C-alpha cells in the first residue's frame, strides 16, 4: 500500500485553524503546508502564541482544522469520526505532554503499557525489556507516579509513547517542567529512539538547546512557517530565534 505515498509520516496541506469570529478571530494556523519525514526527529519552534501547540494537536488528531487537510501517512484525519480518531491515536501515535502525563492510580509499568492495554494487546516482552532498560527505570516499575521524580515521570511518559511502536511520537514541551539534567536525560533518550529504532518524533519546544537534539527545526510565527534549519546546533537555533523576536 505504499506505492502512491511520499515518505512523509505526517503532513499538513493548507491547514488553517481559526478560533472565534469577527473581531475576536484568531488565526492560530494560517494555511500551513508542512511535511514531517519518517524516521526523523523534528522540532517545532516559535514565539509564544505562534501556533506550535495547535499544529501539534491537529497533526495528532486531538483537534480538527478549520480548513485544509492533515494526513497521518495516507489517512486524511478529517475523514475519520471520533472513535476512529481514538483508535488512530491508540495504535499509530504516541504522546508526551508537558505535564499530567501519567495516571496517578497506575504504577510506572501500567502507565507505560496503558495504550496497549486499552487496545487489548500484550506488549512484546523483548521490546518492553529494551525500552525499560533504555529509560533506566527497571527498579522503579512498580512505583506510582507520586513516588517518581519529574524527570523519571517524563521518561515513563516517553517509554509509554514508544512502547506501542507508533508511527509518530508527538511531544509538546516534554522538558518544559524539568531541570536541565533531567531534560537532557529525556532528550537523549528520544534521540536514541530515533537513531537506534528509526522512530519518528515531532516535538514542540521553546528551548534552543532542546531543539538542537532534532534533525530539523521548523520555525513558526503568527500561524505560518517562516523558516527551517536542518541539522541545527543550539547556537544557530538561538540566533534564528532572536531574529524572530521571541
Amino acid at each position, binding site marked *: 500500500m505504499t506505492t502512491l505515498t511520499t515518505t512523509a509520516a505526517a503532513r499538513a496541506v493548507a491547514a488553517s485553524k481559526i478560533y472565534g469570529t469577527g473581531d475576536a478571530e484568531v488565526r492560530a494556523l494560517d494555511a500551513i503546508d508542512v511535511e514531517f519525514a519518517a524516521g526523523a526527529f523534528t522540532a517545532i519552534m516559535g514565539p509564544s502564541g505562534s501556533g506550535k501547540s495547535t499544529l501539534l494537536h491537529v497533526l495528532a488528531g486531538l483537534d480538527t482544522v478549520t480548513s485544509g487537510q492533515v494526513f497521518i501517512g495516507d489517512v486524511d484525519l478529517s475523514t475519520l469520526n471520533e472513535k476512529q480518531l*481514538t483508535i488512530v491515536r491508540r495504535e499509530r501515535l504516541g504522546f508526551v505532554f508537558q505535564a499530567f502525563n501519567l495516571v496517578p492510580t497506575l504504577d510506572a509499568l501500567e502507565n507505560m503499557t496503558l495504550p496497549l492495554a486499552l487496545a487489548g494487546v500484550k506488549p512484546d516482552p523483548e521490546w518492553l525489556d529494551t525500552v525499560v532498560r533504555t529509560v533506566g527505570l527497571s527498579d522503579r516499575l512498580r512505583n506510582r507516579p507520586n513516588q517518581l521524580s519529574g524527570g523519571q515521570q517524563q521518561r515513563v511518559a516517553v517509554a509509554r509513547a514508544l512502547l506501542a511502536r507508533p508511527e509518530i511520537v508527538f511531544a509538546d514541551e516534554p522538558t518544559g517542567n524539568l531541570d536541565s539534567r533531567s531534560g537532557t536525560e529525556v532528550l537523549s533518550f528520544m534521540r536514541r529512539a530515533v537513531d537506534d529504532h528509526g522512530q519518528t518524533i515531532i516535538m514542540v519546544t521553546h528551548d534552543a538547546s532542546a531543539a538542537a537534539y532534532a534533525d530539523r527545526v521548523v520555525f513558526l510565527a503568527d500561524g505560518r512557517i517562516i523558516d527551517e534549519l536542518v541539522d541545527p546546533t543550539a547556537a544557530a537555533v538561538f540566533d534564528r530565534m532572536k531574529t524572530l523576536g521571541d
Partner: protein
Amino acid sequence: MWKVTLKGLLGHKVRFALTAIAVTLGVAFMAGTLVLTDTIKVIFDDLVTSVTRDTDAYVRSRDVIDTAFGEQRDRVDASVLGRVREIQGVREADGVLQFYAQIVGADGKTIGNPMGGAPTLGLIWNPGSLTAWRLVDGRGPTENDEVVIDRASAKAGKVEVGDTVSILSQQAPATFRVSGIATFGNADSAAGATAALFTTPTAQFLSGAVGRFDGIQVAGEDGISQRELVARITAGLADPAVQVITGERLTKENQDAFAQQLQFFNVALLAFALIALFVGSFIIFNTFSIIVAQRTREIGLLRAMGASRRQITLSVLAEAVAVGFLASLAGLLAGVGLAVGLKALLGAVGIDIPNGATQILPRTVIVGLGLGTGITVISALLPARRAARIAPIEALRAATTSTTKRLVVRAIMGVLITGAGVLALLFGLFGGGGVEAVGFGAFLIFLGVAVLLPVIARPVTRLIAWPLPRLRGTVGTLARENAARNPRRTASTAAALMIGVALVGFITIFASSIKASFASSIDQAFRSDYVIRTKGQGPPGLGGFSPALAREVAEVPGVEAASGIRFAGADIEGRATFLGAADPATATTLFDIEPRRGDLAGLGPTQIAVSTEKMRDEGWRLGQSLAIRFPRGPANLTIAATYGAGQRAGLFDFLISTEAYDLHYTERLDSQVFIKLEPDADRRVVTVRIQRVLRDYPNAELQDQEEFKASQTQQVDQVLNLIYALLALAVIIALIGIANTLGLSIIERTSELGLLRAVGMTRRQLRSVIRWEAVIIALLGTLLGMVIAGFLGWSLVHSLADQGLSTFRAPARELVVIMVFAAFAGVIAAIWPARRAAKIDILDAISYE
C-alpha cells in the same frame, strides 16, 4: 468575603443542585407528612365535632377496661334513657349504638371497607335534632325491617329507596327495605365509613345489645350550661354504674382518640422523612468536603491575602446556609404539593377523605426550613473546619495529599460509637428501653460504621473489586483504583447507600421471619380441611362473621365439624392482653394447640385454658382462679386446662369457650371459621355445598391450608411493599449521592481523564470506568448495609420470640436480588457522570495552566 461565597454558589450550579436535591427530597417528605396529617386532623376534628355538636351531655357506663385492642367500655341499660328524659332541663335524649353492619349492594358484593379502611357502621336512626344525618330521599325507618343508608353507599351499591338490601352483622344475614337515603351533614358519607341506620330495636338486636345502648346523647334546654346539665343528670340518675360527661368533653375525647391514631401514622411517616434527611446529610457532607478540597488553592490564596480562619469557616457555612435554606424552601413547596397529591391518591384507593382546606401550619414551615437548613449546616461543619485549616502555603502546592495520620483516632471513635449503638439497640430490644432506644441505637450504629468506614474502605473496596481487572482489564484496574484512591469520599458516599440498604434488608429479613413464623404455626396448628376468612386485607379482629355462618356450615352434609374462632381483648390479672375463644368440643379436631393437662374439650363457661409457657412464666397452677375484667364486667375464671401452642407459636396464651365469650362480650363475630370434612366425604361436592352457604356472606372466602397461608403471607407483603416505597426515597437520595460524588470527582480528574482519552481510551471505555467505579461504591454500601441488616433483623426477631416470632429467616433470594439491584442502581447513578466524563474536551484537559 461574601462576594466570594456568592461566586462560589453561582459558579457551581450543578453540584449545588444535586446537594440541594438531597435536602429538598427529605424536607418535602417531612413537610408533606405534616401538611397531610394536619389537614386530615382538621377535617376529622370538624367531622367529630359535627357528630356531637348539639350534644350537651353524654351518659355512659363507668366500666371501662384497657385491653390489647384498646379501651373497651360496657354498655348502659336502656331504661336509663327514660330516666334521663324525665330529668328537669333535658330537652332531648337519644340512645346511641355503633356496631358492625355491612351493606350488600345490588350486585351481591359488600360495600365499603376497602383494604380494611374506614369502618362499616350500624347505627340507630334518631330522628331528633341531635343527629348529623340528614335525609335526602325517602323517610326514616319506622318498621324493624327498614333501613336508611348513606348516600355514598347508595351510589356505590346502586341502591334506591324502596330496594331491598341484605345486611351482614353478627346476626344471620337479613334483608331490609331501604326507606331512605341520608347524608352526613352535607357529605355523602361520614369520612368514607358506610352507615346503615335502623330502628332502635333492630339496632339492639343486630348488635347483640338488646335492652342496652352504648350511651345516651342529651341536649339541654336553652340557658342551661353543659356543666349544669351534667350535674342535674348525675344527681337525677344517682347511679354509680353510670358516668355523665359534657358534650365538650365527649368531643374532645373523640378528637383525641382520632388524633392518637393519626399520631401513629404521623410518627411513622416522619421517621422515614428523618431517615431520608439523615442519608441526605452524608451527601451534603461529601459535597462540601470535595468542594473544599478542590478549592484548596483558592482558599490558600485568600488566606495568603489575609483572610482569617474564621472568615474562611464562615464563608463555607454561609454557603451551607444559603444552599440549605433554598433547598428547604423548595422542599416545603414540594411537600405541600405532595400532601395534596397524596390525599387525592388515598381517595383514589378508596380511603375517602372529605374536602377541607390544606393546612400549612407555621410549625410545618419552621420545622421544614429549620431542619433542612440545620442539617445542611451541621453536615458542612467539618468541611468548613477543614477549610479553615488550609495554610496559605497550600496556594502554591498542588494539593492532592490525603491525610492518613488521623486514621487511628477515627478507628477508635468508630468502634466506640458503633459499640454504643449496639448496646443501645440491645437495651431497647431486650432491656425494656423501648422503640426510642432501638432507633437511637440504629442511628449510632450507622454513624459509627460511617466514621469507621474510611479506615477500611480501601482494602474492602479492593476486595470487592478484585475480579474486575481480570474481567475488564485496564478499565477494571482503573475503576478499582479510582474507587480506592479517596477512601473518605468513597466511604461517605457508600455510607449513604448503606443506611438505605440496611433498612431495606432489615425489613426484608423481618418480614420473611414473620412469614416463616406464620407458616410454621399454621402448619402446626391447622388440622382442618378449610378455613373461612374475610375477604380483603382488613386486620383480623375487625369485622368477621355472624356465628350463624359456622352453624350453617356445620349442618352441610359431609362436614364433620365447623367452628368459629374469635379474638378479643381482656384485662387478666391486671394486664391488658388478648385471648382466643372457640367451641372446646370441636376445637381439638379443628386445630392442634397441643393440649397438655386438664380437660380442654370440656372447658366450661367459668373456666379458662392457659398455655404452658404462660403458666410457667406466671407460676400459675391448674385449678387456680384468675381475676379477669371483661367489657361486660369482672369475672373469675378457673384454669381448667393447659396447652402447648401459645403465643410463642404464633397463637394465643389464653383460650375460653364460646359460651364464656358470649357471657362477657356483646360483640359476637367469628374471625375465622374452621371446617373439617367427614373422612369419606367427596371434597368437590362438599365444597360446592359450602360455597352455596357462602353466597349469603359475600365478605367470606373459603380457603384450604395453602391458600390460607398464602393470604397471611400476602398481608405481610402488602405492609412490606408500603415500607419499601417509603424507604425508596432514602435509597434514591443515596444514588443521587453516588452520582454527585462521581460528578465532582470527574471535575477533579479532568486532566487525568483527558490524558486517558489522548493516549487512546475510547469514550465507551471511559464510561465503563466510571460505571464500574459506581458499581463498586454501590456494592460497598450494599454489603455493609446487609451486614447491619442481618444484625438488626436477627436481634429484633429474637427479641420478639415470645410474641410468636419463632423463626429467624434471612431470605437468600431476596437479599441477592437487593445486591443485584444495588449494583444496577450504581450503573444508573453513573449515567450522568459517565456522560459528563465522555464529553471532556481532550485539549482542555491536557492544556497546561
